[in-house]
C-alpha cells in the first residue's frame, strides 16, 4: 500500500508543477501589477520596488527563481504584506482554515445523514417534504447572503453568538461560520442519503425483514444504514475538499484569520507570491484529501487493486 501511496504522490507532483506554471504566467498576463495603487509612485521608487522583488528580470528567469525557491520549500515574499513571508502567512492561516473546514465537515455530514435518513423513512409524508424543502433552501441560498442574515439575526438582534472575529479556543466564535459553511454540505449529503436510503428500503431483503414484523428502527440499524451509506461515502472526499477551499466568503464576512480571504485580496492586488502560494497550498490539500480517500477506500474494499 505504501508503494501505491508513493506512486500516487509522485504522479501528482507534475500536476502541481503544471498548474503552478500555468498560474505563474497567466497572472503575469493580467493587466495591472502589485504596485499599481491609488497613487502613482515616483519612477525611482517603482524601480527600487521592482528590483527588490526581482520583477525587473526577464519573466522566464523570474520563473526559474520562483520554482528554485519552491523546491526548497520557500514560497517567497508577499508584495503587499511586508512583515511576513508568504510561507509564514499561510502557516498561520492554514490551521484555522483546516479547523473550520473539518468542523463544518463533521457537523454537515452528521446533520445531512440524519436529515436524509429521516426524510427517506418518511418518504412522501409531511416530514419528508419539510426536510427536502429545508435542504434545498440550504443548497440554493448564496452563502454570502446566508452569512449576513445569520450575522444580523443571531449576532445583532438575538445576540446569541459573536457577530464575527475569532479568539483562539473560543467555540462561540465558530458557531455561525460553521453553520454557514456546513449548510450546503449538509444539503448535498442529505440529498444523497435520502436517495440511496429510499433505494435500499425498496430492496427485497428490507421488504422481507419488514414482512417478518421487524420494527423500522431495527431494520434501519441492521440492514439499511450500511448499504445506504456507500454512495454517500464516495461523495465525502470531494465534499471535504470543497469545504476546505470553500471558506473564502465565510472568512471574509466573519473576519476570520484563514487563508481563503488572502487568495481573493491577493488576486485583486496582484500579489503574485501570495496568489501562487495559496493556490499551491489548496492543491496540495485537495490532493492529500483525495489520496486519503483512495487509501481509505482500498482499505475498506479489498476488491480495489493498487494500480
Amino acid at each position: 500500500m505504501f508503494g501505491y501511496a508513493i506512486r500516487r504522490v509522485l504522479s501528482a507532483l507534475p500536476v502541481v508543477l503544471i498548474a503552478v506554471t500555468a498560474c505563474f504566467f497567466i497572472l503575469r498576463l493580467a493587466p495591472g501589477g502589485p504596485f499599481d495603487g491609488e497613487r502613482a509612485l515616483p519612477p525611482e521608487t517603482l524601480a527600487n520596488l521592482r528590483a527588490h522583488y526581482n520583477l525587473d528580470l526577464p519573466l522566464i528567469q523570474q520563473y526559474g527563481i520562483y520554482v528554485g525557491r519552491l523546491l526548497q520549500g520557500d514560497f517567497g515574499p508577499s508584495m503587499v504584506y511586508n512583515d511576513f513571508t508568504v510561507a509564514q502567512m499561510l502557516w498561520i492561516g492554514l490551521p484555522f482554515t483546516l479547523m473550520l473546514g473539518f468542523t463544518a465537515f463533521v457537523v454537515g455530514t452528521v446533520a445531512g445523514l440524519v436529515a436524509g435518513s429521516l426524510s427517506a423513512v418518511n418518504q412522501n409524508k409531511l416530514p419528508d417534504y419539510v426536510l427536502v424543502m429545508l435542504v434545498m433552501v440550504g443548497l440554493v441560498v448564496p452563502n454570502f447572503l446566508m452569512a449576513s442574515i445569520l450575522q444580523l439575526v443571531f449576532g445583532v438582534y438575538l445576540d446569541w453568538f459573536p457577530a464575527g472575529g475569532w479568539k483562539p479556543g473560543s467555540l462561540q466564535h465558530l458557531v455561525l461560520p460553521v453553520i454557514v459553511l456546513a449548510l450546503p454540505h449538509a444539503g448535498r449529503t442529505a440529498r444523497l442519503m435520502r436517495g440511496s436510503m429510499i433505494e435500499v428500503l425498496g430492496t427485497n431483503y428490507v421488504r422481507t425483514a419488514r414482512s417478518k414484523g421487524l420494527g423500522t428502527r431495527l431494520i434501519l440499524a441492521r440492514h439499511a444504514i450500511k448499504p445506504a451509506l456507500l454512495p454517500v461515502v464516495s461523495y465525502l472526499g470531494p465534499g471535504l475538499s470543497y469545504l476546505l477551499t470553500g471558506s473564502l466568503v465565510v472568512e471574509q464576512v466573519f473576519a476570520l484569520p484563514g487563508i481563503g480571504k488572502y487568495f481573493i485580496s491577493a488576486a485583486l492586488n496582484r500579489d503574485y507570491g501570495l496568489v501562487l502560494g495559496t493556490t499551491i497550498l489548496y492543491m496540495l490539500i485537495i490532493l492529500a484529501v483525495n489520496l486519503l480517500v483512495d487509501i481509505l477506500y482500498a482499505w475498506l474494499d479489498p476488491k480495489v487493486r493498487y494500480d
Partner: protein
Amino acid sequence: MAGVTGKDAVLTAYAQKLETLDAPKGRSLTQDAMRRLVRNKAAVLSLFVVGFIVVFAFVGPYLLPWAYDKIDWSAIRKPPNFEAGHYAGTDQNGRDMLARIMQGTQMSLIVALVATMVSVFIGVIYGAVAGYFGGKVDAVMMRFVDIMYALPYILFVIILVVIFGRNPVLLFVGIGCLEWLTMARIVRGQTLSIKEREFVEAAKAGGAKPWTIIIRHIVPNLTGPVVIYATLTIPEIILTESFLSYLGLGVQEPQTSLGTLISFGSPVAETLPWMLIGPAVVLVSLLLCLTYIGDGLRDALDPKDR
C-alpha cells in the same frame, strides 16, 4: 463550484447505473420518461414556475413604465410606489427595481445557458472520443480528467475573471470550460456500452468514419444524461455568478444579474429591504425549481426501472 448542488455525485451514481445496464432505447424511452415526469407533481409545478420566470424576465420589461437603466431622479432608494410605477421600489440610483430584477434574471439565465452549452459541448465530444477509441487514448484522457478534478476550481475562476476582466461572455465561456468534467465521464461510460451494440458495429462494418459514428449514433443516445446534466448545471452556474458578484467581479453596469442585485441588496437588508427581497425570491425559486426538475428528470429517466 463543481458540485454546488451535489450534481456531480448524483450524476456519477446515475452514470454508473447506466453502464451496468443496457443502453437506452430511443423513442419509447422518451415517451415513457415523459409520462413519469408528468406524474411528478413537484417537477411539473417547478416547470410551470420556471416557465413563468422566463416569461417574466423576457416579456416583463415590455410591460413596465421604466427601463432598467432609466433614473427617476424624484425616487432615489424609495420603497414600492404604485402611482409612480415603481412596483418593487427603486435602487440607490433611482432605477426601477422590478425592471432591474427582470434584466438581472435575463442576464443570469443567459450566462447560465451559455456556460452550460459550452460545458455540455466539450464534455460530450471529449467523453465520446475517449470512450469510442478506448485503450491508451481513453486512459490518458480520463487521467487528465481526474487531474482536473483535483484542481481548486473557484480559484481558477477568480484568476480567469481577473484576466478577462468583466466581460460576461468570456467569463462564462471560461466557466463552461471548467465545468465539463462530469459530463465527459458520463458520456465516456455511455459510449463504452453503446459502441458494442449492433447498430454501431453495423455502421463500422459499412465503413463509416469514427467521427460520423460518434455524431450519428452515439450522441443522440445521450439525451437523457445531457438533459439532467444541463438542468442541474444551470443553478450551479447561477450560484457561481452570484459568488463572483459578491467579490465585485460581476457584470458591468448598467447591466445587472440576480447575483449582483443580491450582493447589493444583502448589506441593506434592514434599511432598503425591497432591494433584497425581490431578487432573492426570484433566485431562490428559480434554483429550487430547476433542482426539482433535475431530480424529476433523473427519476423519470432512471434506467433501473426499465
